[in-house]
């Protein structure tokens, strides 16, 4: 069994094809579609995705460097603000690779690096690794389930509506979006991970207030507070909303889609191929486009939503 079926035992062979017939196998090779799909997917798994490692740690280093550069007058704040915003937007995906143990599985040589990248890369986003990992795996297990998918509350009717939903979900008494992660963690019996979120928030606001009273309030506002809000909306737009929209269907081949983003593959942070990630979460992000192109005939046979891609 591959890692996917080990982690998600509910995923099994035998799902019907798009035309309603059973996946009984190819007449010449004797292999089922599921076997062919797994063979292709396996070719893209394995090896440490060093790009994600350097991306995660380098991105954090750049964001950290902005602070002394701005505070000591080497870089104007107006120039640092867009860089900081980009840093926050880019900080999630390396941790996402770690959440799926792509950099190093438990018991392997690079496990420490996996956990290091997972913990450090999302600091600008103020998102603790344990909480992110547990809720994200829950999202994979129950994608588009109204009660069990922690990201279900990111559903919206249109792109503009989604930005509004993202903002509303971040309000103090909301229990949706990121603020609903606590309930999800309690539900799965991990309230200890919810405490991480509380500590991160306390540290974040403590640093903001400390900086403000030390005379660096605008710097804190434009290097962290505002970039974090913009970055959160951007990440939720392309990771939670767009790949699952309209988020009404469940099932291995129905709960996400491939689509062509107006911002391209880089602008959408590789999420055009999110369907590959949901089917085979241990394929590194940078290999999902190639995996998608090879898997496409199988996905078509499965009746997946492949929209202009």
């Amino acid at each position, binding site marked *: 069994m591959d890692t996917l079926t080990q982690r998600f035992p509910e995923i099994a062979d035998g799902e019907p094809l798009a035309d309603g017939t059973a996946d009984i196998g190819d007449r010449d090779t004797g292999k089922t579609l599921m076997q062919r799909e797994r063979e292709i997917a396996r070719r893209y798994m394995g090896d440490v995705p060093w790009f994600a490692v350097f991306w995660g740690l380098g991105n954090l280093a750049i964001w950290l460097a902005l602070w002394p550069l701005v505070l000591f007058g080497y870089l104007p704040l107006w120039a640092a603000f867009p860089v900081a915003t980009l840093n926050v937007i880019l900080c999630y995906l390396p941790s996402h690779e770690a959440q799926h143990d792509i950099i190093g599985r438990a018991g392997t040589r690079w496990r420490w690096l996996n956990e290091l990248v997972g913990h450090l890369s999302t600091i600008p986003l103020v998102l603790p690794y344990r909480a992110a990992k547990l809720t994200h795996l829950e999202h994979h297990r129950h994608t588009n389930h109204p009660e069990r998918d922690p990201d279900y509350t990111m559903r919206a009717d249109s792109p503009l509506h989604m930005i509004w939903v993202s903002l509303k979900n971040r309000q103090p008494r909301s229990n949706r979006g990121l603020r609903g992660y606590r309930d999800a963690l309690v539900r799965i019996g991990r309230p200890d991970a919810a*405490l991480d979120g509380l500590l991160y928030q306390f540290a974040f606001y403590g640093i*903001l*207030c400390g900086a403000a*009273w030390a005379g660096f*309030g605008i710097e804190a506002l434009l290097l962290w507070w505002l970039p974090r809000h913009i970055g959160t909306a951007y990440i939720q737009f392309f990771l939670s909303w767009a790949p699952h929209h309209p988020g009404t269907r469940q099932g291995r081949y129905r709960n996400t889609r491939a689509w062509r983003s107006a911002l391209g593959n880089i602008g959408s942070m590789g999420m055009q191929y999110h369907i590959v990630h949901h089917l085979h979460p241990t394929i590194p992000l940078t290999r999902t486009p190639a995996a998608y192109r090879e898997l496409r005939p199988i996905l078509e046979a499965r009746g997946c939503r492949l929209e202009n891609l």
Partner: protein
Amino acid sequence: MPIAILKWGFYFGPLLFGLLFIPPVTAQILAVLQWAPPFGLTPLAAGFVLGGTWGLYAQWRGSWLTWTP
């Protein structure tokens, strides 16, 4: 006990943000823009009025932006 303090701080987060972050930032922004607050208020006092009012509203309604959370 420390967890109780964290939860207390989290519960009163909007009010604390309004009183501890918005006032000094407002004062800094007013200084950069060289704007004088109305009614003879100092920049910091203007920040406390703005942050205190907005923070109290967010604490009461559960949202900084809307009437309902």
